[in-house]
Structure formats: structure tokens, C-alpha cells
């Protein structure tokens, strides 16, 4: 009987349930996709050129789990807010707490399990189609990515069902602890937070101090090393929370006293915000941080990728080195816009490689000098043969011209006569530095492919800055992909967190707007009022998040040296991101309108 009643209650609000289910499903799907990328060993082995990639994926996974926990928390409170009136009614009608408790537990768990199951299937499909699409758009190719991966399925199922069991337990405890009356009138309780000027002032000051420490920690990542990130995370969270607590209420109270507040629905808007914002402080803090992480991930990812060619120049002194060029290679080399080229004859014997001093004197080897700060100097330089013999032979780029299975041969420079007498395997190597890497990417790519096919050099060594560029391109492209992926995932979840929290308040608002309707408020005035109210709730964490990112990017300054900068071209990235955020706002608004606005003609 009670089960039937509960089902009827759900049927009445099936649209709200659909929203909830859709949100949870999306979240599970996103998690599956990420888990698939992060745990798929074949995929990682094939692509993690640099071992750090898996570290980054691990870090991403931790963040994703954190936000998932928060997400389910808010989704659950939305669920509870929809149901508690019904539950209260059941209890008043004489249902035992135990029975209602069972009902709550089952309802939450069933909903969660359904969402998880659909989510995994959706995630599978998305892995198959969406990930490929995203990679294509970024011009990346990641090998060995299969959509179906059992450990990822298990990980997703365990995490989600586990979290839902926790949520069910939480609901159970919550319901059995509150009185029937409270459940029935849950949305009528007014809590009017008090403003205490002195305490508020201290909170505000502390908040700003914490924020300052956090931002400083991010900028000082080179000195603080690994402690910087946790330190910043804690202080920025605390700081944001305290700042929100201290300022938002005071601002609203201040506005309420103005004449502006007495026009149209402004007073009501402020009253609503005043009513809500206090309860929302924690969530606004979390959302602002997530916003910052999402935006940060995308900004850094795309920033790296965009600015990589700038850095490629400094990877090596020559763009590419061709050994024993073939006619096909010669053709490609003729297409290059050469800035400097040199051809040397090598004789390789034992662990040494011999060079002809005359050749080196005629075509000196270009070298890179570094400033004290570790930054490369803007121009290359060359040495006289005498100096080169002393120090130049230790140059990494020069040594890399002769690579074998045993590693680099030791370069030795001989006079022309000695060189002629020297025995060993003869190889001619041509180094080319192009004027602009971007301009010659195509022939370089083919040249590099040919070279790699002919000489299976040890994978960890590169010959020429082009090969370095290609490798970093893969790596940073992966980073960019991760940035977009995580960024969009975070955004999706944080926006739905906000959405659920706001929608949880909808049943209470329904009554309020009904009252306004009766008092004679125009429909479009109510629409605008709601748009403003929700807009402000979206805006607050948005602004804080942008500020966090602007400071947070400092962290990447040491990583993105001289020609690159984490701040370069962030405008377009910000725009795209904010566009997505606005779309979420509009969806929330539309849902809210639908739930809250009274029908114009009653029937």
C-alpha cells in the first residue's frame, strides 16, 4: 500500500525525477569515460610517451571523484526535498518510521542503480563516438582506445552504487531524526541569519588573508614545490567561504535599505536571496572552486597546445637531422625553408664516432647557451674549432647526431688526414634548422617518418627539435584533451550541482510565486525576478572562479617558460567556457520557470 502511494508520488513529479535521473546518468557516463581513459592500460602504454601522463590522469581522477561525491550529495538533497513532504504525510497517516525508512532507502538506491546502469551504457557509447570526435577536433590520434573496458565499468559501478548506498543511509538517518511536523512544513521554515558587524568584519579580513596566502602559494610554486597545491586548495577554500559569509549578506542587507529595494519585485528578490544565500554559502564556495578548476584545466590544456610551436625552437639547435639521405628525402629537404644547414661525415667505430675537423671548421655546429635563470638565450652561437674540441663535443644536440643501440657514441674530432685513415662505418649526416617550424610542418613530418623507419633509434632520445615537437605535441595534445574533458565534465557537474540546489528550493518558491500571483504581480515581472535571482546565484561563483583562475595560472608560469605564458590567448577559452556556463544557467532557468510559475488560468 505504502509502496503504491510512494509510486504515485513519484509519478506526480516525473519530470523532476527525469531531470534528476538525467543529471545522475550524465555524471556516471562522464565518470565511465574518464575511468576508461585513465585505467585502460593498453591505451596508456601506447600513448604515455612521458610517464607523467598517467600521473595527470590520476590527479584528474581524484578531482573527478571529489566532485562526484559533492554532486551526489546535492542530487540527493534535491531528491529529499522533493519527497519529504510525502514522507511526512505517510508518517502522519500512521506509517511506522521503520516502514517509511525502508521506503526512502529503497527509493534512493533504486534511482541510483538505474542512473548508474544507464550511465555506464551511455558512457560506453560516448567513449566510442564522442571521445573520437573530440580527439579528431584536436588533431590527435590516440592508439588502443577501446570503449569497452571491464575494470572501468567495475570502478564506475562500485563508486556510484557505493555513494548511493551512503546517500540512502543519510536520507534514512535524516528522516528518522526529524519530526513529522518539520517534514510537512519543511519549506516554510524561515531562518533569518543574524548580521553581527564585528564578527563579519573579522570573517571578511580573515577571508581575504586566506585568499592572499592561497594565491601567493600558487605563484610561489617553484619554492614551495609540492606543498603549494594542497596549501592553496585549503586556504582558497577557507578564504572564499569566509569572504562569501562576510560580504554577501551585508551587501544584501545594505541594498534592502535603499529606495531601489522598494521598486517592483526588487524587495522580494533581495528577500529571497537573503533567505537563501546563507544556506548556499558552502555550495557557492565549492562551485566557485570547481568552476576555477574546470576553467583552469581547459585554459592550461589549450594554452599549452596553442603555444607549443613557440617553445619548439628551444628544444634543439637543429630542426631535423637526416642520416645518409635518400633521393626521396632529398626531395623533401628541398621543400624546407632553411635557415642553417650543415653536413658532416661520421666514422663510427666501437663506442666512438669520428668527425672531420675541416668539415666542422667550415660549417660550425650551432649551439645554445642558457642564461643563469635557466632560460635559453634568444640566438644560437658557434665556436671556433679549437674551442669546439674542448667543450662543444659535450653538446647534447651534437652527440645526438650519432645514436646507436648502446646510446650516443662519444664524438672525437680528427684532423683531415687522421680522419681519412680512420676506419669505421661511414655515415653522412645533414642537420637543418628551418626558419619557421609551423611553415614546414608537412615535409618535416614525412622526413621524420622516413628517418624513424630507417633507423630505429632508442625511443627516449630525439634527433632534432621537430621530433621533440612531435612528441610534446602528443603529450600536450593529450593534456589539452584532458583539460577539455575534465573542464567540460567539471562544468557539467558543477552546473548541475547548482541546478539541483536551486531546484531543491523550488517547491517552497512555488508557494511564494503563487502568492505573488494572487497579489497581482505580472507574469513577466515574476519571470524577470526569477531570472535575476538565479542569475545572481550563478554569477557569484562564476566571478570568484574567474578570479581564482587568473591567480591560479601563476602556478604554470615556471612550466610555460619565456616565449610561452599561461595568460596568452585565454580570452577565447574563457568565452567558450562562459558560453557553456550560460547555457546551463538558461536550462536551470527554464526548469525553474516551469516548476515555479503559477499557471495563468486555474483549472
Amino acid at each position: 500500500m505504502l509502496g503504491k502511494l510512494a509510486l504515485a508520488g513519484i509519478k506526480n513529479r516525473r519530470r523532476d525525477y527525469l531531470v534528476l535521473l538525467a543529471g545522475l546518468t550524465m555524471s556516471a557516463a562522464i565518470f565511465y569515460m574518464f575511468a576508461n581513459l585513465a585505467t585502460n592500460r593498453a591505451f596508456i602504454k601506447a600513448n604515455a610517451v612521458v610517464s607523467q601522463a598517467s600521473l595527470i590522469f590520476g590527479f584528474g581522477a581524484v578531482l573527478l571523484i571529489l566532485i562526484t561525491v559533492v554532486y551526489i550529495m546535492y542530487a540527493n538533497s534535491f531528491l529529499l526535498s522533493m519527497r519529504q513532504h510525502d514522507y511526512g504525510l505517510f508518517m502522519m497517516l500512521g506509517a511506522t518510521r521503520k516502514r517509511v525508512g525502508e521506503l526512502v532507502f529503497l527509493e534512493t538506491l533504486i534511482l541510483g542503480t538505474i542512473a548508474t546502469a544507464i550511465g555506464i551504457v551511455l558512457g560506453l557509447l560516448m567513449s566510442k563516438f564522442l571521445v573520437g570526435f573530440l580527439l579528431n577536433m584536436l588533431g590527435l590520434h590516440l592508439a588502443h582506445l577501446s570503449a569497452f573496458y571491464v575494470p572501468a565499468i567495475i570502478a564506475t559501478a562500485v563508486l556510484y552504487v557505493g555513494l548511493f548506498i551512503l546517500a540512502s543511509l543519510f536520507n534514512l538517518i535524516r528522516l528518522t531524526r526529524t519530526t513529522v511536523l518539520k517534514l510537512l512544513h519543511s519549506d516554510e521554515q524561515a531562518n533569518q541569519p543574524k548580521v553581527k558587524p564585528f564578527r563579519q568584519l573579522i570573517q571578511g579580513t580573515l577571508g581575504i588573508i586566506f585568499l592572499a596566502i592561497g594565491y601567493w602559494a600558487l605563484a610561489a610554486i617553484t619554492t614551495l614545490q609540492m606543498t603549494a597545491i594542497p596549501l592553496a586548495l585549503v586556504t582558497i577554500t577557507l578564504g572564499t567561504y569566509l569572504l562569501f559569509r562576510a560580504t554577501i549578506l551585508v551587501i544584501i542587507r545594505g541594498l534592502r535599505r535603499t529606495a531601489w529595494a522598494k521598486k517592483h519585485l526588487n524587495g522580494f528578490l533581495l528577500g529571497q536571496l537573503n533567505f537563501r544565500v546563507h544556506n548556499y554559502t558552502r555550495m557557492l564556495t565549492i562551485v566557485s572552486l570547481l568552476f576555477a578548476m574546470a576553467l583552469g584545466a581547459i585554459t592550461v590544456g589549450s594554452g599549452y597546445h596553442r603555444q607549443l610551436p613557440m617553445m619548439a625552437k628551444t628544444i634543439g639547435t637543429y630542426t631535423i637531422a637526416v642520416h645518409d639521405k635518400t633521393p626521396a628525402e632529398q626531395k623533401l629537404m628541398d621543400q624546407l625553408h632553411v635557415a642553417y644547414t650543415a653536413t658532416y661525415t661520421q666514422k663510427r667505430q666501437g663506442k666512438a664516432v669520428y668527425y672531420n675537423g675541416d668539415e666542422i671548421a667550415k660549417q660550425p655546429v650551432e649551439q645554445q647557451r642558457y642564461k643563469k635563470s635557466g632560460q635559453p638565450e634568444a640566438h644560437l652561437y658557434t665556436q671556433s674549432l679549437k674551442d669546439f674540441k674542448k667543450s662543444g663535443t659535450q653538446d647534447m644536440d651534437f652527440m645526438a647526431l650519432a645514436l646507436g643501440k648502446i646510446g650516443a657514441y662519444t664524438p672525437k674530432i680528427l684532423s683531415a688526414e687522421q680522419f681519412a685513415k680512420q676506419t669505421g662505418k661511414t655515415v653522412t649526416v645533414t642537420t637543418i634548422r628551418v626558419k619557421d617550424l609551423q611553415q614546414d610542418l608537412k615535409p618535416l613530418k614525412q622526413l621524420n617518418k622516413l628517418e624513424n623507419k630507417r633507423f630505429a633509434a632508442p625511443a627516449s632520445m630525439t634527433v632534432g627539435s621537430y621530433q621533440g615537437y612531435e612528441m610534446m605535441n602528443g603529450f600536450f595534445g593529450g593534456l589539452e584533451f584532458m583539460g577539455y574533458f575534465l573542464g567540460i565534465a567539471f562544468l557539467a557537474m558543477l552546473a548541475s550541482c547548482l541546478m539541483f540546489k536551486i531546484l531543491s528550493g523550488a517547491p517552497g518558491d512555488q508557494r511564494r510565486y503563487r502568492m505573488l500571483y494572487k497579489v497581482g504581480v505580472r507574469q513577466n515581472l515574476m519571470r524577470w525576478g526569477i531570472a535575476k535571482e538565479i542569475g545572481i546565484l550563478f554569477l557569484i561563483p562564476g566571478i570568484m572562479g574567474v578570479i581564482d583562475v587568473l591567480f591560479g595560472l601563476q602556478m604554470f608560469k615556471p612550466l610555460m617558460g619565456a616565449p610561452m605564458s599561461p595568460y596568452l590567448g585565454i580570452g577565447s577559452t574563457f568565452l567558450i567556457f562562459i558560453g557553456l556556463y550560460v547555457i546551463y544557467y538558461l536550462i536551470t532557468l527554464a526548469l525553474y520557470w516551469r516548476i515555479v510559475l503559477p499557471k495563468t488560468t486555474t483549472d
Partner: protein
Amino acid sequence: MTTATTVVDVHGLEKTYGKANERQYKALKDINFSVAEGEFVGIMGASGSGKTTLLNMLSTLDTPTKGDVIVNGHDVTKMRGNQLADFRAQEVGFIFQDFNLLESLTAEENIGLPLALKGTASKIMDQAIHEVAETLSIADLLQKYPAELSGGQKQRVAAARAIVHHPSILMGDEPTGALDSTSARELLDLLTTINQKQAMSVLLVTHDPFSASFCQRILFIKDGQIGSELKRGSQDRAAFYQQILNELGTFNE
């Protein structure tokens, strides 16, 4: 009384609930009556007789199936959308059984709402609020939130909100329904004062003879029709109360 201008004029009003292809229920059948300016009229009837339905038609919260409703010269049945909202905001003051106060606003802000909707200047607004608060002796409650008020106090705040913008008619649907007898009595006295001092027409829906005895004229509704009418005339309230009880005795048979 017959020479005074009419504030409410109802002609051949009908209301049928339910769509044409569904099970229909005729809640109001051919209702005709009028309320003169400054009159205090009561509407009585058993539960389910159609009192709330009638009041909803008059206050434009719902639309009639047939007939005319003219309030202060406006034909309510011809209005649409914003016109309806504006009409409610300007011409009608409403007191509800469950107060209908916004708990996120202070008493003062609640009372000021109809004026804010009109776009009244804040100085004039403050003045009007304090005036009406004096009349209803709630001046010391203005800064409180509804959650901090008793039922009687809430209803007085609601009454203040209903009259602050000087509507042409004040309507109440069982406004004393949720109050204890003392508070109910206070509210009814207040309504009488408002009615007499400000010459504001009052339309009071009630099923309680005591509340009804404060009116000058009472319309009895039975099964969606006006069955009979009682006038207080020059009798005192106690005598009128007795008359109502007698009438109910015969009316309900």
C-alpha cells in the same frame, strides 16, 4: 444604500469545472448580485456550496464560464494577462485564510508589496505603510518576519497589505478561519473600522455566523445559487447574530 454607486456587479455568473469531454461539475449557477460602495457584505453557505469559487471569479483568480463580473467599472471577464494582474494589484485587496505572507520578507516589506508593484516612490510608500500600521496597531511589528508573528498578528499584517493601496474592494475568504476567537474578534472589528472610516467596500466569505454578524447584508449560497438574503438594517449585532442563526436553521433544512 440604493442610491450609492455599485462597486461589484454580477450578472448571470456560471462556473463549470472540468473540460467539455471530462466529468463536469457546475459549481455556480446563474448568480446575480451587486455590492454598493462602502457596503460590508457577507457570503455564507455550507462547505462546497461555491463560496470560494465565487470569490475567485470576483478577484480574477479564475475565469467564469458564463456571465459578467463588473468591478469598479471594469468588466473583469474581458481582461487578459497583464490586465488581470494589474487589476488584482490595484483594485482588489485580498485577505486569505492562510495569510499568504511571504516569509522571506519582513512585515513592512510584505505590506509595501502592492505599492512597490505600482512603482510608488519610497517616501510615499513609507508613509502609507506607517499610516496603515497605526490603524491596525502593528507599528511595532514592522521589522519582524512572518515566522516571528502569531496567527492574529499575521492576519493583521495581511489585512494591512490588502488595504495599503486603497483598493476599491476588500475581499476575504474565511480570514478568521485560522484564528482563535479573540484574534478573530479583533480582526472583524478592524474590518468594520476600515469599512466605516475609509468607506471601503468589504466582501467577506465565511461559514461562521459570528463573523457574518459583523456584515450589513448577507447572501446565502446553496448549491451554487443565491438562496436568500439577510439585511441587518438598524438592529444591533447581537440581534443580527440571532437572526442569522435562525436563517441558517431554516436555510439548511
